[in-house]
């Protein structure tokens, strides 16, 4: 069935965009929760745990995201755990985002000067209180820019899940192109939609980084 690119096509792509954004949000929330735990474990845990988390981060960062996606979709179903494309996509993106966010946030935690830890210790704060009231709030401020910047990567990288048939924006574009044979219309619209989501995030990320340099933190 050949149809031509029109309003309905835009609606179809928009539907894909909604899935892209939804998957991005899931990834950010999942990656955020595990990333924070991993970042804390990586910078404060006992040695064996630090090594374990460091290994995880290095392994995931050295693996193409597409391979992680294939592993969770084809690999796990081969072992008898079948996940539908949406679940496999969310799992693999969370694995990926956890590694990167943990690494970003570990850097932010370790950027807080030794002297701040000591001041908290000298005031008899427990290790948890020290983290909760002194270290993490400061680390949070410096992490905002890079974190928002990484959200752009998440949004763009959701596109690899098209390869396991999850119909997000990129896959929607592919399908539409098969129906219309108008690749420029289709993929320029797809690109524009990515841009509309990603550009404000990039802009915001830069703003947050500038604010950090200006040194007004409160």
């Amino acid at each position: 069935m050949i149809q031509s690119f029109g309003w309905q096509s835009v609606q179809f792509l928009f539907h894909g965009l909604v899935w892209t954004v939804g998957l991005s949000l899931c990834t950010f929330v999942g990656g955020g929760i595990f990333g924070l735990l991993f970042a804390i474990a990586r910078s404060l845990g006992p040695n064996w745990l630090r090594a374990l988390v460091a290994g995880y981060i290095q392994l995931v960062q050295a693996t193409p995201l597409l391979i992680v996606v294939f592993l969770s979709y084809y690999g796990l179903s081969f072992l008898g755990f079948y996940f539908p494309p949406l679940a496999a996509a969310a799992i693999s993106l969370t694995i990926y985002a956890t590694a990167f966010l943990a690494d970003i946030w570990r850097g932010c935690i370790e950027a807080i000067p030794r002297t701040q830890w000591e001041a908290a210790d000298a005031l008899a704060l427990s290790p948890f209180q020290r983290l909760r009231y002194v270290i993490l709030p400061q680390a949070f401020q410096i992490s905002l820019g890079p974190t928002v910047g990484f959200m752009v990567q998440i949004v763009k990288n959701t596109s690899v899940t098209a390869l396991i048939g999850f119909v997000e924006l990129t896959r929607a574009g592919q399908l539409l192109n098969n129906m219309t044979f108008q690749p420029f219309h289709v993929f320029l619209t797809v690109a524009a939609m990515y841009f509309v989501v990603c550009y404000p995030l990039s802009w915001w990320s830069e703003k947050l980084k500038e604010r950090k340099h200006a040194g007004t933190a409160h």
Partner: protein
Amino acid sequence: MPALRIENLKKSYGNVPVLKGINLAVENGDVVAVIGRSGSGKSTMLRCINGLEPFQEGTIEVVGHKLDQSRANLRELRKEVGMVFQSYNLFPHLSVAENITLAPRVVKGLPRDEGSALVREVLSRVGLAEKADAYPDELSGGQQQRVAIARSLAMKPKVMLFDEVTSALDPELTGEVLKTIAQLAEAGMTMVLVTHEMGFARRVATRTVFMHQGTVWEEGKSEEIFTHPKTPELKNFIAPDLK
């Protein structure tokens, strides 16, 4: 019972001994100045007292809380010991009032509505009553250091430790901080202060300890130490200040 007792404190970094068996007792209300050359172990000793540095041998005892290399009792001891650092180390993301009330709230369970009275009380003791809502980066170095003293006071410590708290300050700001410390001394606070301000040590400290090569080389009443030093090392050390 002394407010602070250090017995046979030994500490080394790797196999380099830095403290070689320190013994020191500080009575209630004593102000002890610690002087000595760079590298003699003054800061290390002070940091061992509140457990910022682990040590290999000996004990530290503050009002009945005993600390040894096992580091049990660490937090109990820290609740009784205030520490003021050379670089102030205020929490930059918190206002002056929040800096002051954080530890009393979370460590000692101070009710929220008693916070502002505490802030007023300790800030007035350092002469900064009007700065409760400022952030650290809006204050001068001298003011930040006085807020750091106030933050420490807010925990109602039995002993306060000061590590060269004026060395990061411009000379014209040193005076205001020294004055604050002198007032605490008059009010009867027990203090151990590492300092390079010999005149101040002599005037304010009841006792002075001269550290040399990781040991307490000579100690006594400040007046004695500065007017009749016994060891050649101490004579050499304070010679320029006697002229």
